[in-house]
């Protein structure tokens, strides 16, 4: 069977078909069907996923460039399965809500979104370094277009910045991939961990991969492209950017950096942990002082993704498992928060706190929804944010106490910036009388967010169900003790 290929390529086929459509609604419908095919196939794969298996499942391999051993090889395991689900779930949600908000070049927008989905799924499912690199670069182009064409007033600066940052990172990664090939004679991700990389080479490979992934995550101090990109991106772009794209960095660290360069990771650990802690506190403090709702969420992502890298480099399995749960949760919650920002922006045409306030009275349903995702974001137990963060904190303490204590201040600050944000947007008196007549969330918006909310509760109440998917695969990562 070729389930994984269906998952990867259905959106791309959909993108071609979308370009053949003639109207806005038929473009959306075709895009929706294509993304739903991927979602259905993903659900089927998860239903058949063997949680007790250690290796890759549903592996599919064909020769591509046999001369240098490049294959089309895909497979899924616990490290990728939640990322695939995240991508497959968020894309149709973005397509549905974009139908309400995108007015120009709808056809091209939908096509770009579907190409983007293929790229992201390929990144998570590829088991060949060259294939991985192709998908990694493929993601860049549609995202560049989505911000550059459908973005806000300062979109050109932001999109060039986004492009250059991530491009610089990936060029070095290509060098590293070639170096790995010359050292091990293979691009095959499945066999690579068994062919130890020469220790002298590990440091260089680590630096190259680190730059590519750290920019994507983004880790401090490589994060400044993110707030700019978010502020200018259309809502759908922001959702995918925060929801999935950032996870490609965390995924890369777990899939490639930890197993391929274990000695280099060990040497760099203290720096990685320090950068993660800085990102957590720094991102939170800067988020606290933002005056623009979207920028606040963007900086909160820097803080929350700091937990991801903190867990990854903590040397503990509970930390890596926690990092994956945190990525999944952050994708759901921050994706939803960006949709929420879009909902209020569409109605008020402002994202500044100085203009907002008292919206809970006008939009009671929205008030509950935003409160729910805000609380999930600040790590309220029984919602998804808590589980991953707590596991990461446990792991950080297991490494060295100071990293855990400092990271925990980020949890306190998260409550401060999220609750102040909520208060300034939703509570108190309405500042602009025109806002009193604004409509509450419509049915499409509610239906788009409902499955996300359900998953957020599911992960929060029973994170073990999700960790069970992950933990056999992360157990294979060689941790150096």
């Amino acid at each position, binding site marked *: 069977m070729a389930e994984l290929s269906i998952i990867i390529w259905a959106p791309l086929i959909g993108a071609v078909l979308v370009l053949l459509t003639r109207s806005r609604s038929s473009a959306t419908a075709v895009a929706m069907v294509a993304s739903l095919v991927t979602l259905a196939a993903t659900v089927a794969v998860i239903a058949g996923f063997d949680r007790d298996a250690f290796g890759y499942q549903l592996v599919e391999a064909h020769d591509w460039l046999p001369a240098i051993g490049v294959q089309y090889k895909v497979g899924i395991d616990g490290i990728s399965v939640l990322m695939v689900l995240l991508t497959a779930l968020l894309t149709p949600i973005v397509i549905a809500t974009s139908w309400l908000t995108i007015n120009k070049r709808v056809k091209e927008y939908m096509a770009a979104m579907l190409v983007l989905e293929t790229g992201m799924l390929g990144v998570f499912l590829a088991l060949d370094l060259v294939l991985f690199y192709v998908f990694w670069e493929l993601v860049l182009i549609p995202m560049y277009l989505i911000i550059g064409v459908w973005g806000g007033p300062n979109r050109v600066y932001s999109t060039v910045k986004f492009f250059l940052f991530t*491009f610089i990172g990936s060029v070095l990664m*290509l060098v590293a991939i070639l170096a790995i090939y010359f050292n091990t004679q293979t691009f095959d991700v499945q066999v690579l961990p068994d062919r130890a990389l020469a220790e002298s080479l590990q440091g260089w490979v680590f630096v190259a991969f680190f730059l590519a992934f750290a920019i994507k995550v983004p880790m401090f101090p490589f994060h400044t492209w993110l707030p700019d990109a978010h502020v200018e991106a259309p809502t759908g772009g922001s959702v995918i950017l925060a929801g999935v794209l950032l996870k490609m960095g965390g995924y890369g660290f777990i899939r490639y950096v930890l197993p391929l360069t274990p000695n280099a990771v060990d040497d760099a650990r203290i720096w990685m942990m320090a950068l993660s802690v800085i990102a957590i506190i720094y991102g939170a403090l800067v988020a606290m002082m933002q005056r623009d709702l979207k920028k606040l969420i963007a900086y909160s992502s820097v803080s929350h993704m700091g937990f991801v890298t903190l867990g990854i480099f903590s040397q503990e399995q*509970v930390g890596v498992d926690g990092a994956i749960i945190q990525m999944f949760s952050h994708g759901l919650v921050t994706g939803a928060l960006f949709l929420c920002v879009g909902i209020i922006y569409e109605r008020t045409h402002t994202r500044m706190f100085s203009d907002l306030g008292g919206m809970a009275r006008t939009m009671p349903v929205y008030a509950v929804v935003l409160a729910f995702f805000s609380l999930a974001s600040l790590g309220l137990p029984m919602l998804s944010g808590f589980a991953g963060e707590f596991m990461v904190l*446990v792991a950080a303490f297991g490494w060295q106490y100071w990293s855990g204590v400092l990271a925990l201040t980020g949890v306190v600050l998260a409550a401060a910036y999220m*609750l102040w944000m909520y*208060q300034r947007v939703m509570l108190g008196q309405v500042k602009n009388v025109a806002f009193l007549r604004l409509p509450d969330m419509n049915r499409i918006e509610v239906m788009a967010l409902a499955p996300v909310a359900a998953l957020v509760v599911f992960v929060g109440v029973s994170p073990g169900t999700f*960790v069970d998917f992950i933990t056999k695969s992360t157990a294979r990562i060689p941790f150096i003790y």
Partner: protein
Amino acid sequence: MTDFPWLIPLFPLVAFAINGAFGPRYLKKATGVIGSAGILGAFAATVALWIGGVHSDTPDFTLYRWVSSGSFSIDIGFVLDPLTVVMLLVVTGVSFLVHVYSIGYMAHDESFARFFTWLPLFVFAMIMLVLSNNFLSLYVFWELVGVCSYLLIGFWHQRKSAADAAVKAFLVNRIGDFGFAIGIILIFWNFGSLNYGDVFASVSDKSPDLMLLIALLLFIGAVGKSAQFPLHIWLPDAMEGPTPVSALIHAATMVTAGVYMVARMRPIFEVSNEALLVVGGIGAFTALFAASIGLAQTDIKRVLAYSTVSQLGLMFLALGAGAYTVAIFHLATHAFFKALLFLGSGSVIHAMQNQQEMSEYGGLWRRMKWTYFTFLLGGLALSGVFPLAGFWSKDELLASAFFKGVASDGSWAFTVFWIMGLLASLLTAVYTFRMIILTFHGKPRNAELHSHSHESPISMVAPLVVLAAGAVALGGAVGFPPEHGFIHDYLYKVPGVFHFAGAGEITAVISLAIISTAVAAFGIVAAYAVYSRRQPSPEAVAALSPRVYGLLYRKYYVDEIVNYGIVGVTKGIGLILWAIDAKIVDGIVNLIGWTVRATSSLTRRVQTGQVQNYLFLIAAGAVVSVGAFVIFR
């Protein structure tokens, strides 16, 4: 019932789900009945658990595996022992009465259904907190009751003061939880488990320093949740919430979670005399400190709020003295008489069209006799007058501190704490009767409001009567004879209970009882002299030292210190970092970008489009690096 303990939290959870899903649109007023029924179900199930028999060796009930990752494996489960049962009886019993009361109190509120969504959710979380058999789920529900508190303090969210108070409550609690979480994680790494039973069993193997550290970290959590100095600042502001919320969450149940937690963690606190000293010291200080502030407050709910802070302090004093049953005993009696006082104040506020300033009250007793008499009984119980509920528990509580002070293994510090506790009791009697006199006696000070005042409806009065019965009789019923009442015997079944020294000396016990009764009587007389006879008048008393009065009225300026000190400084750092982010971190990026653009203007003439440029760079980069690799390897 030990096979179905999950029924207890299930009832309120279902009520929450029904009211949340269908309340605003379909059920409307019916949500009040559904919510109350859910809580009544939980109460009935608790009674069944109690009657069915729970012993110290009743095994834990495992609900499900929360997570299992590497060595980190946590099950969500219930601990079924007498302490749980006592807490559950108090929580579900008082909750039910408050729910019934709220049907009347909130009847005219447009968000009635929303109220009856969050209130059952709170009860669910509180029940789960009490039932939890491990530190992780304790923390989970500890935060969940906190968020319910946030939602209900900010219930009237259009009022800025309510929204501010809600955020403040959550943030101050998060600071407490910061210590709590560190303590929990340290427990995991040192014990390899977060299950109470596993941890308590191996406490004696660990170093005393470690146990002191863990105990103090856990206690920081209790200080936040139970509003002890210096994290007490959120509770008085929390009075912005509807009065039934103040009665249930901010007097009877949630704020006592810290007391419950320390009582539950006794095996951890017990191994460290220093930890117990800190617990007792913070408790005694807070008791006196908050009672003194209560003297000068003019808002009836704020007086009660500071009273609650003070009474919680007394409970911690008892915990510090090792008298764990006494702390729980006082927790139970306090839940009744303080919920009664809050609901009584709610009845007054209801009658006075939401006016909370006592300067607008006066002479109300003729207009609302039921409220008055039940309130008076609550006030007498709070003051510790024989033979009401508060007398028994408070008397034992002070005695436990006294005996700890003179015991051979005790500390002289507890003698100081005992005196502080006595002074706090004196001030308690004064502010309580000041409040009663200013509210119900004398001449009406606002004729307009007074003329419209009326007794509250039956659904509000009936819970007052039931609570008053508890405030009168509960102490004697479960706590007599001292040290050997029902509650003592029942709680002694919990392993590791400390029986305080000297309890058998009957003359000492009686003398202490006489001392504390005399103190309470003196306080009541003083309040009568000043506020009723006006000899000397309150103004004259305040004029004795305007500086002291100002200090009390402004609550020792703790709020100002926190606002300008902690919040201001944190925001300042945030602003500085933001500037650094824009000017330096991003500045370097822009500088690089500018340099690249300047130098690449040459190549741009060769390459016309972005995509080609891009491909060219890939190819060039790859060729150069492969070449480099081949050459240098």
